[in-house]
């Protein structure tokens, strides 16, 4: 399909897809089962094409991307159990829709890290923007700095660990999974959550609707200590536990037919 050029040199096709004619750059230095390439001069599409070519065509299991330059949508949709190291900071939507890879980001990330992630591990050395791990289904994500507003919104599984603070409405409409927040949490923590558990080490500005303190068990201690040990996060601070109060209308005990009668 013919592309439409712009003054910036970036090309779009009729569907708005960026760089429809981009090809695999083929610049990676491959050594056995590992590969490394510098992304500084590459566009987002070229970076992802290079990565996918290494993983899916060449079967490389250990890839390093240098100088990502905060470009958006890097390493999205990787469905193999590879090891990926990003030397620097990717931008928004990094590692979305992944299923299986073990990713180490040696920098910070923008909004929407690991959106809809299915499984795998992502460790970020710096902070993350808002909407971190939105609708995540599984896997572990560790953010060693702060994370922004609405962290783990609509979370459906997995574990989110944030060593710094989180913003407003963290855990909003959370449905399952766990959040371990070592720092402070903003207003409306766990607002309208259905299920799941949120642990907070610092202060909570305010709890959201139907989010209540939970009863601490040995399983909670075991979980947090194990995660701290696996990811080498240092001494375990004291945490408070928050769960769904299950007082909202969707938790009544009525059958649908009975509910109609009540309404």
């Amino acid at each position: 399909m013919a592309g439409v050029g712009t003054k910036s040199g970036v090309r779009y096709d009729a569907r708005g897809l960026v760089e429809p004619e981009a090809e695999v750059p083929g610049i990676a230095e491959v050594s056995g089962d590992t590969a490394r390439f510098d992304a500084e001069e590459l566009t987002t599409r070229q970076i992802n094409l290079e990565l996918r070519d290494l993983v899916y065509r060449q079967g490389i299991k250990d890839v390093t991307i240098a100088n990502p330059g905060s470009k958006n949508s890097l390493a999205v949709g990787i469905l193999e159990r590879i090891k990926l190291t990003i030397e620097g900071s990717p931008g928004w939507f990094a590692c979305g829709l992944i299923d299986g890879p073990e990713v180490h980001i040696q920098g910070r990330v923008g909004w929407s890290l690991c959106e809809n992630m299915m499984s795998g591990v992502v460790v970020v050395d710096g902070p993350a923007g808002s909407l971190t791990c939105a609708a995540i289904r599984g896997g572990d994500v560790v953010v060693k700095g702060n994370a922004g507003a609405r962290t783990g919104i609509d979370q459906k599984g997995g574990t989110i660990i944030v060593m710094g603070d989180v913003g407003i409405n963290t855990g909003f409409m959370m449905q399952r999974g766990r959040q371990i927040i070592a720092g402070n949490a903003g207003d409306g923590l766990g607002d309208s959550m259905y299920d799941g558990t949120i642990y907070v080490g610092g202060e909570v500005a305010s709890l959201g609707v139907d989010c209540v303190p939970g009863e601490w068990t040995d399983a909670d201690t075991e979980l947090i200590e194990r995660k701290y040990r696996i990811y080498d996060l240092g001494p375990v601070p004291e945490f408070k536990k928050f769960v769904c109060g299950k007082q909202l209308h969707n938790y009544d005990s009525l059958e649908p037919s009975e509910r109609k009668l009540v309404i």
Partner: protein
Amino acid sequence: MCGIAGVIHRNGPGDIGVELTRMLQSMKHRGPDSTGYALYGPSDDMVVIRFILAEPNESRGFGMDALIEKHRAEAESRLAKIGAEVATISSETGYAFRATMRYSGELQPLADYLEDIPGCEVLSLGNSLEIVKDLGDAATVDEQYGLSSFRGTHGIGHVRMATESDVDLASAHPYWAYPFADVAVVHNGQLTNYHHWKRRLERNGHRFQSECDSEIIAVYLAGKLEQGMPLEAAMKDSLDDLDGVFTYVCVTGNELGFAKDEMAAKPLVLFESDDLVAVATEEVAIRHLVQSEATTRDPFEREVKVWQV
């Protein structure tokens, strides 16, 4: 969507034209419809005014060259009549003009008198503020207006994706806070009590150049500044007075500040060093200004911060 950016040099002037162009062009994907700059050059006793006599699309109409020339002559005549001693007047585009002048009177009558000319819109007025905005991406506007050579202490910029109004200069950011000298705003978001504040400010004698909600913020803040309130306090008040989702950056003759709404619904990334502060909607813009992996952070909800030159 839209993207905003700001940069302030705290130890003397820098190449803010080049810097903002780099930042804005890197966020072209957030808004390719129009690009605007509010730049602060050296301040002296001259008043600098930027105004347009036609929208870019109108200017290509039949007979428009002669009409614009007639209105330009009228503008010069009116400036002289109101007591302004024009030193220079120039145009890079044929429809957008820049003039410097000696003028010690009130700014509002001057702006009103000029805008009484059909098609005239004053984009900025003050001792150091220059607002430049036009259709297209940052590289296009930079090339058109020769902004790469602009040196100054601070500035802001905006790339716009038109969502609720036309692709034209009236809807392009930044907005000057008519009739207050040297105050401008760029904004990413939507204000839901726009009509409330527009009516209220109009009752107090303000007029608006556009139907854009972002212009409210500029005039709202300038009104508070005129009453003697510090910029930071005015911006904190705005978090309670303005409804909606927003992140905005405001600049005055010697300050630059940002405010994020209570939902933190609109993004901003902040880089801060001893001599340079930069803010942008996306990290990628900061990377185009500071080449290395510099430390940045995302401000939280209800955060307001102001820096002085």
